[in-house]
C-alpha cells in the first residue's frame, strides 16, 4: 500500500494545500465549543453583552473562512485523486501491454480487468476521501481530547481513558467484520457462478429438461448467501449501539463529576458545557472512524492486487543488439532441434523439432490435439522463448531481431477470431495502421469476405461489437484473416482458421492466398482437403515431427496419415488419389 504513495509525489503542493485547509476546518470546529464557553462564562453569566457580540462575530468569521478553505480543499483533493488515479492506471496498463504471454497466463483476463478498473477506482476514491474527510475523524478525536484537557484536566481524563478502549473495540469489530464479509463474497461468487452457467447453457438446460435441477441448485447457493449476509450485517450493526451507549455513559459521568467540581468552584458551567460538547463531537467522529476503517481495509486489498501487477517481472526481453540490418525479409523459416515447454510446466511440448519452410512455400501442419501445433506457431513471432535449439528467419536468429520488426513480418490468424468493437474497416485496418481503403478491400477480397461486407447496410462502415451486428463464426474468421492479410506479411500463420468455412469458400481462399501473396504460409489444419494444397505437410505427434513430405508421399508411406485420410474420405478418398 505504501508503495503506491510514490505516485502521489508529483502532487505534493496540492496535497499540502488540501491538508492545510482540512486542518483549518478542524481547527474551527475544535475552537467553537471553547468560544461558546467564553460566551457563556464571560458573557451570559457576567451579563456582558459586548463579549457575546465579540465572540459571536469571531465565530461567524471563522465559519466563513472555514467554508472558503473547504472549497479549495475539495478542488485540490479532487485534482490530486484524479491525477493519481490517472497515473496509476497508466502505469498498470503499460505494464500489462509489456507482459509476455507467459506473464499473461498467470492472470485471468477478468482478474486483470478488475484490477485495472475497480481496484484502481477504489484506491483513487480512498485518496480523495483521505484528503477531504478521512483525516478529520481521527484528528477530531485527538483534537477533541486535547482541547478538553486544555479546558479542565480532571474532567477530560474521563475521555482520555474511554477513547482508547473504544478505538480498540472498533478495530476488533472491524477485523471480525472483514472476515465475515470475505465469506459473503465467496457465497456471492458461488451464486454468480450458477447464474453465469445457466445463462451460457440455456439451450442445454432446456433440452435436457433440467430446469428443476438448476432451480434447486440455485436455491441452495442463494440461501447460503442470505444466511451469511444476514449474520454479517447483524454483527456489524451492533457496533454503533454499543459505541453510543459507552460514550453516552461517559457523558453522564462527565456531567455528574462536573457538577461536583462546580460546587467546589473548581470549574465553571461553560467549561462543563464545552467538555460535553467535545464528547458529543468525538462520538460522531468515532462512528465515522469505524466506517473509514472498512474503507481503508478495502483499499488495502485493492492496493495489493494492483501491486501484484506492478511487481511482475517481464520475462521476455527484446533483442538487445541491433546488429540487425534492416531491409526486406524473404520469409524462410527454419527450426533447428527446437525443444520447448511452457513456463512452469514439466512436460516438453515440442521435442527436438527440425524443419525448414522455404520462402513462399505453403506448409500444412497436422496432428492430434496437444501434438504441439499451436505452440509451434507461437514460437515464430517469439511469443515465448524456447528451451533449446534455434529458430531462424532468413538465416537470422529470432533473438537477434527486434520484436517489433519481427512481428511486423508476421500475419497471425488464431483459432478463435478475436475482433474489437468498431467498424469493419477499423477492424481490418487494425492489422496495418494507415491502411488505405483500397488495401483494406483487397485484403477482404482475398479473404473471401468482401461480397458479404458489401451486402451489409453500411458495408465497411458497419459497426461490430456491442451495439453492432453479430457475425457468424465463418464470417468472423474471414475478417480475422483479412486483418492479417492487409499487413502484407512475409509469413502467414493460419491456426485452423478455416474450420468454420465450407469447402468451396475455403478452396477459393487458399487459391487467392497463393495467387495474391508472396508469403510463406503455415497452416494448421485437420482437413486433408486443405493439406492437399500444400507444398509440404508436417505431421506432428506428441511434440515430435513424425513425418514430412508432400501429400502423395505421405499417403503412400505413412500409416497414420492413411488412417486420417480414411476417416475423412472413406475408402473413396484413397482410391481417388491413386487415380491422379
Amino acid at each position, binding site marked *: 500500500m505504501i508503495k503506491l504513495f510514490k505516485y502521489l509525489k508529483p502532487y505534493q503542493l496540492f496535497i499540502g494545500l488540501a491538508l492545510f485547509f482540512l486542518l483549518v476546518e478542524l481547527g474551527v470546529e475544535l475552537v467553537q465549543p471553547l468560544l461558546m464557553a467564553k460566551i457563556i462564562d464571560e458573557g451570559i453569566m457576567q451579563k456582558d453583552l459586548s463579549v457575546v457580540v465579540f465572540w459571536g462575530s469571531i465565530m461567524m468569521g471563522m465559519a466563513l473562512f472555514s467554508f472558503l478553505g473547504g472549497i479549495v480543499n475539495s478542488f485540490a483533493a479532487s485534482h490530486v485523486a484524479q491525477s493519481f488515479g490517472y497515473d496509476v492506471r497508466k502505469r498498470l496498463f503499460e505494464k500489462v501491454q509489456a507482459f509476455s504471454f507467459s506473464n499473461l497466463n498467470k492472470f485471468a483476463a477478468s482478474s486483470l480487468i478488475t484490477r485495472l478498473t475497480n481496484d484502481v477506482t477504489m484506491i483513487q476514491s480512498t485518496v480523495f476521501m483521505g484528503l477531504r474527510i478521512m483525516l478529520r475523524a481521527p484528528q477530531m478525536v485527538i483534537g477533541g481530547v486535547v482541547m478538553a484537557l486544555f479546558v479542565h484536566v480532571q474532567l477530560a481524563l474521563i475521555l482520555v481513558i474511554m477513547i482508547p478502549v473504544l478505538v480498540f473495540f472498533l478495530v476488533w469489530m472491524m477485523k471480525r467484520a472483514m472476515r465475515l464479509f470475505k465469506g459473503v463474497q465467496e457465497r456471492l461468487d458461488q451464486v454468480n*457462478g450458477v447464474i453465469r452457467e445457466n445463462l451460457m447453457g440455456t439451450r442445454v438446460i432446456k433440452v435436457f429438461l433440467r430446469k428443476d435441477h438448476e432451480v434447486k441448485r440455485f436455491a441452495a447457493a442463494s440461501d447460503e448467501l442470505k444466511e451469511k449476509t444476514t449474520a454479517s450485517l447483524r454483527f456489524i450493526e451492533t457496533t454503533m449501539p454499543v459505541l453510543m451507549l459507552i460514550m453516552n455513559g461517559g457523558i453522564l459521568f462527565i456531567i455528574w463529576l462536573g457538577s461536583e467540581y462546580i460546587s467546589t468552584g473548581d470549574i465553571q458551567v461553560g467549561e462543563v458545557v464545552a467538555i460535553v460538547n467535545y464528547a458529543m463531537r468525538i462520538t460522531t467522529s468515532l462512528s465515522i472512524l469505524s466506517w473509514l476503517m472498512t474503507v481503508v481495509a478495502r483499499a488495502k486489498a485493492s492496493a495489493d492486487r494492483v501491486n501484484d501487477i506492478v511487481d511482475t517481472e517481464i520475462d521476455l526481453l527484446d533483442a538487445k543488439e541491433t546488429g540487425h540490418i534492416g531491409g526486406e525479409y524473404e520469409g524462410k523459416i527454419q527450426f533447428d532441434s527446437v525443444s520447448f515447454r511452457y513456463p512452469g510446466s514439466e512436460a516438453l511440448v515440442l521435442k527436438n523439432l527440425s524443419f525448414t519452410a522455404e520462402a513462399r512455400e505453403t506448409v500444412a501442419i497436422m496432428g492430434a*490435439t496437444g501434438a504441439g501445433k499451436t505452440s509451434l506457431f507461437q514460437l515464430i513471432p517469439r511469443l515465448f522463448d524456447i528451451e533449446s535449439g534455434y529458430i531462424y528467419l532468413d538465416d537470422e536468429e529470432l533473438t537477434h531481431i527486434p520484436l517489433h520488426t519481427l512481428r511486423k513480418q508476421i500475419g497471425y490468424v488464431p483459432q478463435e477470431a478475436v475482433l474489437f468493437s468498431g467498424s469493419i474497416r477499423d477492424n481490418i485496418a487494425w492489422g496495418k495502421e494507415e491502411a488505405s481503403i483500397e488495401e483494406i478491400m483487397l485484403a477482404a477480397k482475398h479473404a473471401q469476405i468482401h461480397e458479404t461486407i458489401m451486402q451489409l447496410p453500411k458495408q465497411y462502415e458497419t459497426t461490430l461489437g456491442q451495439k453492432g451486428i453479430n457475425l457468424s463464426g465463418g464470417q468472423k474468421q474471414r475478417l480475422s484473416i483479412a486483418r492479417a492479410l492487409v499487413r502484407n506479411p512475409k509469413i502467414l500463420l493460419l491456426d485452423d482458421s478455416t474450420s468454420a468455412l465450407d469447402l468451396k469458400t475455403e478452396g477459393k481462399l487458399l487459391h487467392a492466398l497463393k495467387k495474391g501473396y508472396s508469403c510463406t504460409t503455415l497452416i494448421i489444419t485437420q482437413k486433408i482437403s486443405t493439406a492437399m494444397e500444400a507444398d509440404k505437410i508436417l505431421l506432428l505427434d506428441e511434440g515430435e515431427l513424425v513425418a514430412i513430405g508432400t501429400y502423395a508421399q505421405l499417403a503412400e508411406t505413412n500409416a497414420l496419415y492413411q488412417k486420417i485420410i480414411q476417416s475423412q474420405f472413406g475408402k473413396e478418398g484413397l482410391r481417388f488419389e491413386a487415380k491422379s
Partner: protein
Amino acid sequence: MRPKAKMKKPENWFPTVKRIWGYLREREKGIVFVLLMVIVSSMLGLLGPYLVGVAIDEYIVTKDESGLLLLLCSLLGVYVFYSLSTWLQNYWMIGIAQHTVYRMRSDLFYQFQLLPISFFDKRKHGELMSRVTNDMENVSSTLNSSVIQIFSSVLTLVGTIGVMLWLSPLLTLLTLTIVPLMFYGMKWITNRTGKLFKEQQSSIGELNGFIEETISGQRIVKTFSQEEKVIGEFLERSERYKRSSFWAQSYSGLIPKLMNLLNNLSFTIIAAIGGYLALKGVVSIGVIVIFTEYSRQFTRPLNELANQFNTLLSAIAGAERVFEVLDEREEAQDEKEASVLRHVTGKVEFEQVSFSYEKEGHNTIKDVSFHANPGETIALVGPTGAGKTTIINLLSRFYEVQNGRIMVDGQDISNVTRASLRSHMGFVLQDSFLFQGTIRENIRFGRLEASDAEVVEAAKLANAHSFIMKLPDQYDTVLQQDDSGISQGQRQLLSIARAILANPTILILDEATSNIDTITEVKIQEALEHLMEGRTSFVIAHRLNTIQQADQILVLEKGRIIEKGSHRELLEVKGFYYELYHSQLKGDKIG
C-alpha cells in the same frame, strides 16, 4: 462522500415501489415492529440532549445534587433503551431486507428458466448478470439501511423541530434561517453535478469497456505488435475520464463543506443570539445547550435525506430493471391447450416452413419441406448463413415457425408442450457446454436417474471411457468452467456420452466434428455411429465422410433447399453438391 455507484433514474417509481412493498409484505409483522422501534429510538434520541440541557439548568446551575443524580439515572435509562431499540430495529430490518432480496433473486432465476431462447440470444450475458448482481445489490443495501435511515431521519427532524418550538419559538426561527440557504446551496450544486455525473459515468463506461476488450484480446495485440497504438487510445479515454471526474467530484465534494458551513453558522447563531437572549433572561443556558445539540441533530437528517434520496432512486431504478425481466413473456405461455407428446418413433416432417429472425427483411429460411423416416440420418449442408442452424432451432422450438408447420410422428409440434417435445431429443452442439462438477455428474446430466453403471456404459459407447480412466481422479475428476485439463475433443466426447445416456429418439448434431483433431475425430465418428443407430439424426457437418453416409442430404443455400437426396443421387444431378464434392477432392481443377 462515498463514491456513487451507477446513478440511474427510474421511469415510473410508484408501481415499482408498490411491487417491492409486495415482497416486503411477506414479513408484515416484522415491519410493524421495526417501525415501532424506529419511533421509540427517535423519541429517545431526542430525549437525551433534552435531559442534558435540563441537567445543566435545573441542577448544575442551581447546584442541586440529589436531583441531579436522579436525573442522570433516568438519563442512563434513556441511553440504554436508545441503544437497545436502535439495535433491535436494525437487527430485524436486516432479516426482512435479506429475505426480500432472496425472494426477488429466486423469482428472477426461476424466470430465467422460463424465458425463451430468443430472449437470451438478443442480450449480452454481462448485461443480464448485471441485473441479478448490481441491481439486486442496490436494492439489498437500500432495504438494509436506507429505509430505516429515511424513516428515522424524518421522525428525528419532525421531533427535533417540535421540541425546539416548544422550548423557544424564537430560537427555532433563528435556527431555521439556515434552511433556505441549504436548499439553494444544494440546488445549485446538484444542478451542476447532475450533468457532470452523467458525463463521468459515460466516460468511465467507455474506459472500462475499452480495457475489457483490449485485455480480452491482449494476445492479438501482442501478436500484431500494436501495444503502442492501444496505449495511445487508452490514454485518450483515461484523460477524458480524469477531466469529467475532476469536475464531478469537486462539485459534489462541496456538499459536505456546505453542510459544515451551515452547521457552524447555526452554532454561531445559537451561541451569539441565544447568548444575547439568555442575557436578557428570555432563555436559559440549558436551552442554549439543547439547541446547539439539536441544531446538529437537525442538519444531519436533512443531509442524510438528501444522500439517501439518491440511493433510493438508484435502488428503485435497479428494482425496475429486475421487474422488467420478470414481466417478460415466458416461453410456455402459449401452452395452455398443448398436449403432451408421448411415445415417438422419430418421424419428422417439415411442411413449407418459413422463418426470419428479423421482423422485416428477407427470410432466413423459406418454404423448407422435407421428411425424415424414423432412424434416418439427415445431413444439412450449405455455406455459412444458409439456414442450417435455423432449422435446428425451429425443430427444438427455440424459435417458432412463421409459416408452415413441423410435424413429429404426425403431430404438429406447436401443439405440444415444449418440455414433452424436448424430452425426446438429444443434442450434441458445437459448444459442448459442461458444468462445473465431476465428469460423472456431467454425463449424468443426460438422465439424472441413471445408475453409475449406465454412466460408464454411455462413456464407453462414446469412446470417452479410455481417456477418463487415464485421468488422476477418473470419473470423479472435477471439470472447471474454462477448459482445463481436458481438450476440446474430449469435451465433445463427454457431451456425446451425455446424449447417449439421455437415449433420445431424435438427435441433433450441430457442427460437432469440426474443431477436433483427426485422431480424436476417428473416435468421435465411431461414437456418433453408436449414437445415431436407430435414432432420427440431423447433422450439420462439413466432413465428406459423414455426409456421404447420410440417408438424405439437404443442400441449403440462402434459406432454401436447392437439392435433396442421397449422395449417389446428388452426384448424378451434377449440381451444387456435385461441384462442392469435387472442389474438395481436386482443388479448382476439375476433370
